[in-house]
């Protein structure tokens, strides 16, 4: 069976090192031609919104996110319900983000052989 990995991001961008270290892992996997698919749920959806993180003194990892497509990480899924809870529109700082309802998200997640959650 072909192996495939899904990475679920569930933390706000500035909540600890979760978001940044999850992105680092995704990029390394991509650079070894094991591009993961990325899921954003809960507070994780804030990782995809337009923001000005640098104002807080933290590194602006949204810039690093632009590198995702370079490493063929092109499957990016966002939970519709989490957006709705946060009153967020379907506008993202990245292109080609797919918004999925809960059932579609579960079906998508079922396709992978490994799952990590940060």
């Amino acid at each position, binding site marked *: 069976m072909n192996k495939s990995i899904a990475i679920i991001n569930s933390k706000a961008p*500035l*909540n*600890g*090192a979760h978001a940044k270290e999850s992105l680092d892992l995704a990029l390394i996997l991509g650079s070894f031609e094991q591009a993961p698919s990325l899921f954003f749920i809960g507070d994780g959806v804030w990782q995809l919104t337009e923001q000005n993180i640098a104002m*807080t*003194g*933290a*590194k602006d990892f949204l810039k690093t996110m632009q590198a995702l497509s370079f490493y063929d990480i092109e499957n990016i899924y966002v939970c519709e319900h989490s957006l709705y809870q946060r009153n967020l529109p379907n506008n993202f700082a990245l292109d080609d983000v797919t918004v999925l309802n809960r059932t579609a998200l579960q079906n998508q997640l079922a396709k992978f052989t490994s799952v990590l959650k940060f």
Partner: protein
Amino acid sequence: MITSSPLSNLTATSIALVKQMLMDDNIKLIGVFFYQDGVLNASASLSIPADEYQSVKQWQSIHCDYHLPLHLCITAAEKRGLSDDWQDTSNILPEFTVSGLGEFVSLYNSADQLIQL
């Protein structure tokens, strides 16, 4: 009292607030006590990438410029890998004072107000 980890983004805000208090003539800050995950702020071996927030340097300059006592709860620190005598050396930044919870009580007694960050 600082109880949040330097890896959390809260630290940048906490440091900025400490600086604001130090620069405000109407506020007299008598000390900072580091407890729980906050003790990691005193680690001499944190290696933060150059393009990320440099909390260590900030605490150092706060201590040097304002002579603000930075007290470290050593019991909480040792559980998290800090020690003033690990292999005959200390991995605690020299700007921090090795203290115990008793020192917190004494700071608390001298202060009008206690703020947790």
